[in-house]
Every structure is written in structure tokens, then in C-alpha cells.
């Protein structure tokens, strides 16, 4: 099968909208199809990776653990925008998985290198 470079760009916070969760579902299918998958987190998307999510009191299924399982699907290229982290008072230590923190310019270069970019 053809292998393409797929990047999934996440720009929205979790739980307020479903995009983060349904984006993850696409990422896992992309990995199952053995594509070359990477994920970018920028703007409010960096909040998806914030450690310590507990959704019990809002009655919605949490999915922080799914990010931890991405490695099992060989999804290891997670790029996080430095500027978005800083504006939100976050650092890489606040995140639930190991990531590569990059500048917006570097993120743009990764985007340019893709065959398919899907933004959620």
C-alpha cells in the first residue's frame, strides 16, 4: 500500500467541543492503515495534552489516556507549538506525554513536508 505522510493539526481545547476526541479516532485509524502519521498541537489544541484531566463531574468520557496509548500505535511524532504553550502559562512538564516543542516557523516546515494535512 502507498504510505503517505499524514499530519493531524489540533487547534481546539478538549471537552468544550468534540473535535479533539474525533480527531484522535482518525489518528488511530491512520496508524492502523500504516501511514506515516504525525500530530501537531497549536493554539488551544495544546490544552488537549494537559496532565490530570478528570471529567467525572461533567459527565463526559475523558480521553487523556488515549494520548498515552498513541505510542503503542507507533504515533510518536507529536509537535507542540512553544508560543501557544507560553501564552497559556504551560510548559512541556505540564503535558501527559513526551512531545517535541517547536517554534511556529518549525511547525510550518513540518506542515510543508506532508502529503495530507487534516486540521481539527
Amino acid at each position, binding site marked *: 500500500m502507498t504510505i503517505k505522510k499524514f499530519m493531524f493539526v489540533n487547534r481546539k481545547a478538549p*471537552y*468544550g*467541543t*468534540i473535535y479533539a476526541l474525533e480527531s484522535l479516532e482518525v489518528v488511530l485509524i491512520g496508524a492502523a492503515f500504516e501511514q506515516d502519521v504525525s500530530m501537531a498541537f497549536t493554539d488551544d489544541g495544546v490544552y488537549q495534552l494537559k496532565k490530570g484531566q478528570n471529567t467525572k463531574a*461533567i*459527565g*463526559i*468520557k475523558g480521553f487523556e489516556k488515549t494520548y498515552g496509548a498513541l505510542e503503542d500505535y507507533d504515533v510518536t511524532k507529536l509537535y507542540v507549538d512553544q508560543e501557544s504553550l507560553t501564552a497559556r502559562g504551560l510548559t512541556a512538564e505540564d503535558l501527559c506525554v513526551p512531545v517535541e516543542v517547536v517554534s511556529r516557523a518549525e511547525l510550518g516546515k513540518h506542515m510543508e513536508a506532508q502529503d495530507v494535512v487534516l486540521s481539527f
Partner: protein
Amino acid sequence: MIFSILVNEGPYQHQASDTAFNFAKTVLSKGHTIFRVFFYHDGVNNGTRLTTPPQDDRNVIAKWTKLAQDSELDMVVCVAAAQRRGIVDEGEAKRNGKDATNLAPGFRISGLGQLIEAGIQSDRIVTFGD
């Protein structure tokens, strides 16, 4: 005190319906009254009985239906918004020549006047949306 609630987004895509539900339940548990829950815009999509959410997630529609039945809530889906989005009861199906219905138990379809009436009759009206 008399509350009404306006829900402007559909289930799952936005948190609006979940928050509105939690709010409505709390209003009732504190002894207040809910005059009406009105579903407008994509909020009408909360009124379909055809959803089958994943087993490990909540069923937003079933929660509303149960609350309506347990607490005699008046839950109104706006007819104009429902026609645009395909939410249909038997009367609407007949009027518009549709071969199926999908309105969930506990909901009824009616006009926008019901929202204005809710504003007039209630001490407070709270909107949940995008």
C-alpha cells in the same frame, strides 16, 4: 424561582447540551421550577431518538428524555429549526410528506413563540451554546 433554559447546539459536537442538562438537574434539585427547555438552532438535534453513542460514553438524548419523564419537564424543539435539520414527529411527517419520524420521547415540536413565552413567564432564562 422559575427558570427556562435555551439549548443552541446539538449533542456531542459541543458541550452545551451536557452543561445545560447538569444545570437543569441542579435547578430542580434545589427546589426551583423549570418552565421550559427550548431547543433552537442545532440544539434541535438533541431531540432525535436514533442515536447510539459508544457504550462507554453518556447518552445525551436518553438523559434528557429521562429527566423530562421524571420531572414533567416541558422540552420544546423549535419547528422552523427542526425542519431545516430533519427533526420530525408524526404531525410534521404527515404535513411535509416524510416517510419516517425521529423525535425522541419527552420532546415536542412547536413554534418560536414558545421561546418568547418562556422569557415572559420565567424569572430567569439561561442560554447554552457555542
